């Protein structure tokens, strides 16, 4: 067609300077769309879910039957009661590591360029992913609980169990934004995998998830007591066992807020950068 068209109508209309309300509505719409996409992908690749559950069960069985005798006797506690809430937090942390690895793999795929060319909130790609991983965490934590019960563990109440799973998942959600920022910066899935060892293992093992801080050397105790995995383990333990943990819950929510405030803007700006 050689005829020159001087105007054209677009049935959808254009959003030029959206009001904050409209912009927010569009961002939420985008996030739920990406969440839908990532949930389909999770269901189509159940190996990630299986891996998280197997790791959780692995820690449960290994620590309870191998180290449980000595840690329990040394600290004079019923070790299974101590361990299960810690393993819930550790499982959620593994889920956050999977966000990092998964997003790094995602960023190597061409569909990310398509997302960048679409009229969508650019943070939605990561937000959808972290939310989908949080949903997956709820499932994997529930499955870990179902293994703990035949081992002899008892929650103090159903509401305590639900609150414990949700709080562990919430911390995992916060840490997954950190994982997302690392992935958006590094972008190579293999390098992201190696790097995750450096934050995952210290956070996981130098914590009160598996053993009380009292049994550790004094110089290590301040870090161990107040790092997020410990405050979350203490809080989840209080909720699951009905022993109360007001301060630990507040500290954990504080860590969650800090992780979100730092890593949401950081990961989104790193994601938008040219490569």
């Amino acid at each position, binding site marked *: *067609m*050689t*005829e*020159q*068209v*001087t*105007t*054209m*109508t*677009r*049935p*959808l*209309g*254009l*959003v*030029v*300077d*959206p*009001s904050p309300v*409209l912009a927010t*509505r*569009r961002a939420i*719409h*985008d996030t739920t*769309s990406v969440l*839908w*996409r990532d949930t*389909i*992908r999770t269901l*189509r*690749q159940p190996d990630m879910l299986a891996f998280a559950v197997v790791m959780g069960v692995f820690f449960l069985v290994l620590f309870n039957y191998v180290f449980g005798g000595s840690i329990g006797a040394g600290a004079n506690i019923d070790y299974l009661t101590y361990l299960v809430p810690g393993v819930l937090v550790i499982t959620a942390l593994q889920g956050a590591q999977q966000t990092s690895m998964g997003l790094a793999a995602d960023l190597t*795929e*061409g*569909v990310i*360029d*398509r*997302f*960048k*060319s*679409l*009229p*969508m909130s650019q943070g939605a790609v990561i937000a959808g992913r972290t939310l989908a991983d949080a949903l997956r965490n709820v499932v994997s934590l529930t499955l870990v609980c179902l293994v703990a019960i035949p081992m002899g563990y008892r929650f103090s109440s159903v509401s305590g169990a639900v609150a414990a799973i949700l709080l562990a998942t919430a911390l995992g959600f916060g840490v997954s934004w950190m994982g997302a920022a690392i992935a958006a910066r590094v972008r190579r899935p293999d390098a992201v995998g190696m790097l995750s060892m450096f934050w995952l293992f210290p956070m996981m093992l130098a914590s009160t998830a598996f053993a009380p801080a009292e049994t550790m050397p004094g110089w290590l105790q301040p870090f161990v007591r107040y790092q997020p995995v410990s405050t979350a383990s203490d809080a989840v333990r209080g909720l699951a066992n009905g022993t109360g943990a007001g301060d630990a819950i507040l500290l954990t929510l504080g860590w969650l807020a800090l992780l979100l405030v730092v890593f949401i803007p950081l990961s989104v700006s790193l994601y938008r950068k*040219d490569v």
Partner: protein
Amino acid sequence: MTMHDVVEVPRDPVVEARGLTKSFGDVRAVMDVSFTVGAGQIVGVLGPNGAGKTTTIKMLTTLVSIDAGSAGVGGYDVGHQPDVVRQLIGVAGQAAAVDEKLTARENLELFGRLYKLPRAQRRGRTETLIRQFDMAEFADRPAETYSGGQRRRLDVVAALVADPPALFLDEPTAGLDPRSRSELWNAIRGLADQGTAIVLTTQYLEEADQLADHILLIDHGRIVAQGTPAELKKDVERDVLEIRLLDTAAIDTAVDTAIEAIGADVEMAVDRRERKLSIPVGADPARSLTLLTHMRDTGIPISDFQLRRPTLDDVFLALTGARESEPTDGAPVPGPPRRRNRP
């Protein structure tokens, strides 16, 4: 509930690039590229691998930042209002792919949602596109299981979900068999006929020749020539006389004879292994006649000759400085000085 609040009308030209420039480190990927695309027009960006085609597309589609120059789509600035520009464009090909784990239907649903198409419109559009591009057979399988042709089709269709006024196709037919290619060509022509402004990159001269109203030839990030396919061919303004000799030994004599007949100011290609001279003879048939007559009179044994009309290949090779037939024995071509055709 609507996701849109303002209705605006993009103006013509739909796409405008003004002095686009981009470097990656020390590498100048694109230098000072300017062009416009009107509604219903197809602009072909033609160039070899690494010429800067994909980078140009990526700048126009907000995928990479613009170092210098500017670009507009529908009158909106790509650098300053990328969120508006993204509502007006569709991108396909090397520059943007689909989700491998999702089916075609799910991919189109996802992109429809992200373009904020209302649900009913989204569903209808997805079904129409699947039918129109003959994708029903594989629309419910994950994209990672597709053949090359099926993948390319989904790539292009994904760019059409919101029926955008500006479409960017980055080597859309790379790796397609001839039948799929010509089907896709028809589809692209159809979109232009409906008023879509299309920027299409390609390495295939034939593709640019077939589809584009206007061709930009780019090499090393710069536009080295532009015009309609006919203008570009006319630019070369020469037919090429190809003479094959019976005998390798006669080549040097033949070259001398040719220079005697039509002058030294000719860029002649000599292929010793093929015993072939390719001599530009301009648009004047008498020149070929003079040359052939002179060769016969000198007693040069000719096995075969043909007069070749210029193709876009000739334009391309002349302007990108590539040689069509290097002397295969590595010896310098004797005789005629080389005339560089670069502007």
